């Protein structure tokens, strides 16, 4: 039984991961509403966009913590998503402040499909990693 830094990391990530899952679920709902005409893209995109940077930074924080804790396996699992996030962030449209989910193009079927798929994939990833973190946390707590 040892309350190591790694164990602390896992506990914290567990909580944050739950937050990420909610973010993603929120996004999924948002895109679905767009698709079914419930909402206006402007109303929809603003909050959706507001969540993007927090999501990315929380995920970045994970990676940083795991690196500090020396949890290389976990870090390795997260690295691909980290790179994906970086790629999306830096390939945003040239006009600056808007990261993504541009209200004028989000109704484009290709983009909407892409966003939806992306959200579902992330949901799956976060759910799996949630349980993985849970397991790792317990493992870190009970192991010596």
């Amino acid at each position, binding site marked *: 039984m040892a309350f190591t830094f790694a164990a602390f990391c896992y506990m914290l990530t567990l909580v944050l991961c739950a937050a990420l899952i909610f973010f993603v679920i929120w996004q999924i709902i948002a895109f679905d509403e767009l698709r*079914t005409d419930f909402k206006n893209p402007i109303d929809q995109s603003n909050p959706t966009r507001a969540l993007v940077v927090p999501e990315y930074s929380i995920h970045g924080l994970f990676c940083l913590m795991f690196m500090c804790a020396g949890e290389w396996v976990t870090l390795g699992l997260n690295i691909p998503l980290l790179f994906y996030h970086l790629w999306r962030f830096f390939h945003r449209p040239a006009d600056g402040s808007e990261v993504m989910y541009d209200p004028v193009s989000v109704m484009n079927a290709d983009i909407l499909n892409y966003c939806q798929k992306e959200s579902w994939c992330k949901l799956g990833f976060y759910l799996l990693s949630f349980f993985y973190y849970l397991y790792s946390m317990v493992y870190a707590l009970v192991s010596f």
Partner: protein
Amino acid sequence: MSTPGYTSNLNSTYGVNPTQNGAAALHHHPHPPHPPLQPQQRNGPDPTHPAMYPASSYYSGLPQQGYPSGPAQGLPAPGKAPLMNADYSGNYYHKTHSQPGAPPGPYPPPPTSQTPTQPPSTTNPPVSGAPQYLPQSYQQPVPYSMSANYYGQHYSATSQGQPVQQQYHQLHHPHQQQQQQQQQPNLVPASSGTTLGTPLYPIVSYPSAPGSSQYGTLRSSQAPAGPPPIPNMMPPPTQNALQQQQQQQQQQPQQQHQYPHGNGPTPTPTQQGYGAPPLHQTATVNGQSNAGQQHYDQTPPAPVGPQYGSAAPSPGALDGGSRPPSGAPSAHSSPGHQQGGDSSSTTTGSASPVPNSYESLEGGSYPGPSSVPPTNDASKQAPPFGYNYPTMPPAYQQNPAPRPDTTASQGGYNAPGYQPYSQPFPSLSQLSAALGGLSGVPELEVEALRPVNLLQERSILPPSPPAPPEPNLSSDLRKVNCSPDTFRCTLSCIPQTQALLNKARLPLGLLLHPFRDLTQLPVITSNTIVRCRSCRTYINPFVSFLDQRRWKCNLCYRVNDVPDEFMYNPVTRSYGEPHKRPEVQNSTVEFIASSDYMLRPPQPAVYLFVMDVSHNAIETGYLNVLCQSLLENLEKLPGDSRTRVGFLTFDSTIHFYNLQEGLSQPQMLVVSDINDVFIPTPDSLLVNLKESMELVKDLLSSLPGMFMSTRETHSALGPALQAAYKLMSATGGRVSVFQTQLPTLGAGMLQSREDPNQRSSNKTVQHLGPATDFYKKLALDCSGQQIGVDLFLLSSQYADMASLACMSKYSAGSVFYYQAFHHHHNQAQKVKLHKDLQRYLTRKIGFEAVMRIRCTKGLSIHTFHGNFFVRSTDLLSLANVNPDSGFAVQMSIDESLADTSLACFQAALLYTSSKGKRRIRVHTLCLPVVSQLSDVFAGADVQAITCLLANMAIDRSISSSLSDARDALVNAVVDSLEAFRSNGSNLQPAGLIAPAALRLFPLYVLALLKQKALRTGVSTRLDERLFSMCEFKSQPLRQVMRMVHPDLYRIDNLTEQGALHLNERVVPQPPLLQLTAEKLSREGAFVMDCGSVLFLWVGKCCNEVFIRDVLGCPNYASIPPNMTEIPELETAASERSRAFVSWLQESRAFPAAFYILKDDPSSKSNFFQHLVEDRSESAFSYYEFLLHVQQQMSK
């Protein structure tokens, strides 16, 4: 007394009720409509269209002022929930709607003493003074009193809690109603002089007969005695046959009595009404119907104003009232101008008069329609497409008329117009089409599929612009189908499955020009707009009637009830023939919408002009041209007596102009705080044009001189736009921005991003996207407040079109670009700006518009192209809609269409006309569904495909890169030809084989690759490139095709042979030449039509006679270098040339700039860059391109 405004509003709001009353009585369902019904009513249609929710919630404050059909009646809910909600900003409606209800008292016009009185030269009004004015910021006495005028009764009714009762009350007490009008004289705009008819005819009309009650109100005295109703819309022979056919199908013999009855008395080309009163009434009442009538009524007697519905005299009178007195006269005194204004709503609103009349008024850009018989007019204006007229050779198929009935009625008054032109070039396809019906179709198909070896056939260009393919439909359907000018599909045979579409490797999409000027348009005033209950499709010619009382939606296949009201046919005035209603006979119709379709009362037309007055702008001298054009066209601005205008200039500060009525001269108010822009005096900056006409004129004549000595070089465009937004946000409207340089101050400032050395780079072009999202966000805000922003960029330096164009792109505006405009050095540009402004200022405009495109279940819209904001999967929000913008849509096939043989598309454009009428223009296109790949190829429409590909390529070049886009274009050719090759088995392996339908495809794609927008390796300014991209995305197909593949004609030997005879004008029709220098000769003179530019190229050894007779110069050497028009000489050759050139000019909305070029090196490049078949230093020639494609295919 006359209370014109009031009366007209009476019409619009209460016109419904008599019917309702009548209907209720008719069916013994007296249903006192309670407001509590609302939720229930909503629930009907809504679940499938949740987008309507917001709207209905906005309506909650509104009493249901009598939706005629409550659920109790079992009628389809007519439109409880507007299918299209123009507003999505939630609180928008609340804001406006609460105000009209309030008594006018709280919003008195602010005392003029409050407005800072400063001499125009004074700068820097005290910023501290601002708060003083702010409290008034939403007081806009003029509009609100107007809207109270319009809607006041509703709101007051609401507050009483029994709106409907009150209405009933009024219905039964007309005198009381009139009294009420007179009780509110203060609400009435001072246009009393205009109501010609009001005093003459009682405003309120009662349902005199059960039938008439369904269609609005006929005067009881008139109803039975009126002239026999004559179906104008679907007149004589063919249509008759069609109808009879349908009748037989429907087995309703009794209608046979009715129809002849209706039709009998109409050999004359009159405009008959649906329930029409004698014309002289309409004519007197409604000044404009006279104008309209002229075009049509060649036989003076027998005129009847066509009336679809709401009754005769009263609406006419009412409308007359709401029209500005000056507007009407100008409207028909100058019919040749592009009278954009809606004369339309007046005339048509009154009773859908001469469905043609207003359109010919506005069809505008073509001189002299008033004296032209309609057919000539039509064929003259029309772009040369039209599969509706199969008997005509393509060159002459020019009737834009959306209503194929015209064809049908050729036996009638239309025939003489067409026939002369239908002879000259019969070709196989036309002959087979002429054989009529289905029998011709297989031949067409065979022809379209004939393999063409592109490498061997050199002259593939037809002698006249290619006509769109005809869909393989039964002749009945083909006749009623939408005009290809309005609505066109890239594949005129829809593949059954996505797999089949993928196999064909052709893009599937639609090209729309929904608001274009039409010469004929049935306008329907009906209380119930019949729509499918589940998908909200408007009833259209392609629905099927299962029996008398049920119809099946052609898009979602739901079976709907036919409402009682629809059973009555206003054409024949008979009951029980719903399939003969104009809605079911025309694929393009316009409805006058009820208040169900409004989120707020129709706002006045508001125009704001935002002008750059920095040093650079003054240098260009555009202000003179602009102010001159404005002065000329002030009276012709589309609008009614409520029209408002405002002016705003800016350099490093923002100048507002107080034009409040009563001032002795305009006051300039300068706001120098550009970081936090405020509106100095909220209520006197946008003024009623009519009331402040003198001041406006004063301002416009002094404005060019005011800044002559300015030294200010900065431009604070962003803050000026913010100010404009604040100024306009209460009402919406149109903002016209004139900018001459890169914005350098305040929000939205831009840096130069263009590297001149990279202009001709072969590598990827940078900076195609916007540099900042300021303009996009602003545009979205504007779009939310129903403000459309049009940009006129007159810059000689780089001005970052990529960023600036965003303000128009997303607010549904238009972009104009005058490269290196200078009033002195660039005469042609100056002339062009002047002419463009003339058209721009007077063209029709629709406000608060939304367009929804519906398609048969299984098809879905994938991507939209054009200027608008996409609000949901099938809904476009258009703050302004203008007749010159086109849209493109990419489609995908989600589900197999195997169980249907027809696919339909319906575009419905809901807008507020400049006269304050809410209208819905509905276009429906029907196409066959096919399961064979060869059929898909046979139906390919190469021009539409090219346009759609251009749009896709532009998106691609912005999101990815230019070279990607270019590769994709080449691949599109390679793929489709490969697909054709692998499909066909009977082909010889050698050569490059294309189906005849696609034989021009490689040529067009090559031409696309050489466009400014997409070319590489040729020096192209970034702004020019971006502007070209904007044009591709927002121009209608015809115009895009001219830009892509200009038309080249030889004109030094024009003959009368095969000429068009229009209106006593003879327009020679030289054959189209291929775009290669090989076709040019030194001995000739050639005209090249590039859409926005016309070149007349004169060869070195050109025939002296031509130079003398046409150009008025003794010899080649003496032709001046800067000629911009063909001089008016009295020679036959000159007349022919001028007729031809002006005929070309008339076929477009904005006249092209005309250049006469001599064959010398300086002007060469301009002309020769358009010869797309030739090799240029960086691009393939046509033959090389074919070889390249072949090489790619064999890989």
